[in-house]
């Protein structure tokens, strides 16, 4: 009789399936999928990096607005159009009457050094505090997801733990929290898009930066939407069918996807919003 081993490595009978890696097919499939997702997002971020660092000016002026008070009258200067490659630093501004002014960097400085009160200026339409809060939300949802997995592994299947105290909630509680936080993230992203498009007129056709911004954050948002629906499906199935620790791996796979989405956002937040 052969000696017992952790995983048998003996040759399988001819023509029989034998797993190549010591993991279940589900986990193998999920990691393979995530490997393709790494390439997908690298393609997007890589293109953005090339466009950005290859550009002479960034962010490309899209909606640079300065409101100044001139003799009790508010004058709005809006940067329009793309900079021309041979005119380094030039920006074209439209004033209140729609008249265009092609200003060199030194002229731009002088234009707003006339002692007029500056009421508002926007160099970027992106709402950094709001997005930082959204990043925090997504990190929170990763924690609740991993706690949901830990809960089901320990057969803590209810809304709260059998024993009061940390970590307080059971599998159902943490799954629901993950779904709600994920939905919260999406709601804030919708609010951000709404403000960008309808208030700042920052649309995908505004500039190459705007295109990149919507493609990257939009693709990520689509992944978050998929993740929320995936988690919701599992949550309902778990309640309906009374899942226990034997279903932990199903939750683990969903968790892998969800954490990956969080991981991508961490990079996107830095690349798109901070740098």
């Amino acid at each position, binding site marked *: 009789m*052969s*000696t*017992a*081993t*952790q*995983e*048998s490595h003996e040759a399988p*009978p001819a023509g*029989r*399936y*034998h*797993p190549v*890696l*010591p*993991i*279940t*097919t589900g986990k193998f499939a999920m990691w*393979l999928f995530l*490997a393709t997702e*790494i*390439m997908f997002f*690298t*393609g997007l971020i*890589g293109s953005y990096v090339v466009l950005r*660092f*290859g*550009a*002479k*000016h*960034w*962010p490309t*002026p899209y909606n*640079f607005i*300065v409101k100044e008070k001139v003799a009790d009258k508010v004058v709005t200067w809006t940067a329009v159009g793309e*900079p021309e490659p041979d005119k380094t*630093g030039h920006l074209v501004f439209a004033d209140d009457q729609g008249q265009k002014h092609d200003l060199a*960097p030194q002229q*731009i*400085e*002088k234009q*707003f*050094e006339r002692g007029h009160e500056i009421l508002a200026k926007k*160099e970027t339409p992106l709402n950094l505090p709001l997005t*930082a809060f959204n990043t*925090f939300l997504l*990190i929170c949802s990763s924690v609740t997801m991993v*706690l949901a997995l*830990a809960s089901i*592994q320990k*057969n803590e299947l209810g809304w709260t733990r059998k024993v009061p105290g*940390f970590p307080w909630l059971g599998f159902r509680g943490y799954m629901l929290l993950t779904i709600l936080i994920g939905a919260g993230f999406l709601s804030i992203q919708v609010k951000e898009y709404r403000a960008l498009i309808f208030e700042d007129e920052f649309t995908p056709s505004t500039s190459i930066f705007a295109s990149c911004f919507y493609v990257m954050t939009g693709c990520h948002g689509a992944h978050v939407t998929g993740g929320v629906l995936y988690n919701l499906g599992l949550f309902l199935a778990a309640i309906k069918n009374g899942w226990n620790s034997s279903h*932990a791996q199903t939750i683990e796979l969903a968790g*892998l996807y969800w*954490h*990956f989405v*969080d*991981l991508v956002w*961490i*990079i996107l937040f*830095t690349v798109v919003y901070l740098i």
Partner: protein
Amino acid sequence: MTDTTTGDPITLTPAAQQKAKEYLEQDKTHDVFRVKIDYNKKLAIDLDKIRPGDRTYQQGGVNVAITEALIPILRGLIIDFGPNSEGKVGFQFAGPPHADPDLGNKAQAALDKAAAGGHEAGHSTEGDYMKIFFALFMLTAAELGCTQIPLPKLLFILVLMSLAVFKAALVGMFFMHLKFEGRWKHILLVPPCILAVVLIFALMPDVGRTGAWPHDVPGRLMADSADGK
């Protein structure tokens, strides 16, 4: 409960081996002969796939799989194939585990313990997850703080990207449990990571061709002037 005894924990008689082999050859979707405790807390056999936490061994050409936690409880079990006392032909159990009236409860307790303690031994605990959460929160705050400090552009980018990669690594290592996974993770994840880096480097000439770093963004000049600087 750790099983330190050597030798196969469960013995299949030649008749059982022959039958199990036949079944496995007919069923192309499964590759192990699993011995388990079913939902009624009774001994059972099944054709299955290898699952995490399994111990498998070969017996007479049959891949036998048992959940690691059940080995001490099932050790000494003998599985035969033939008619039982009522004349019904099938797999029959014998040996000390089969005679144990409390086998089902003992097995459930062992599985629960493995699910709770056993997992923690190789993975993070809830406390560890909260520490990682705190670290991610602080690193995000540090990133936001960096945007308020006037740093040279290149240094600014390096610092922020380092922080982002570190945060991503924390998520991957602890939340996705990569820190605790076996060497298979390298097979699956190293190729796309290499390709990702290659892609960025392959695109570098396009960046170099234009050769402009964003240190002369006109908007910045304008914002500074508006502040009265």
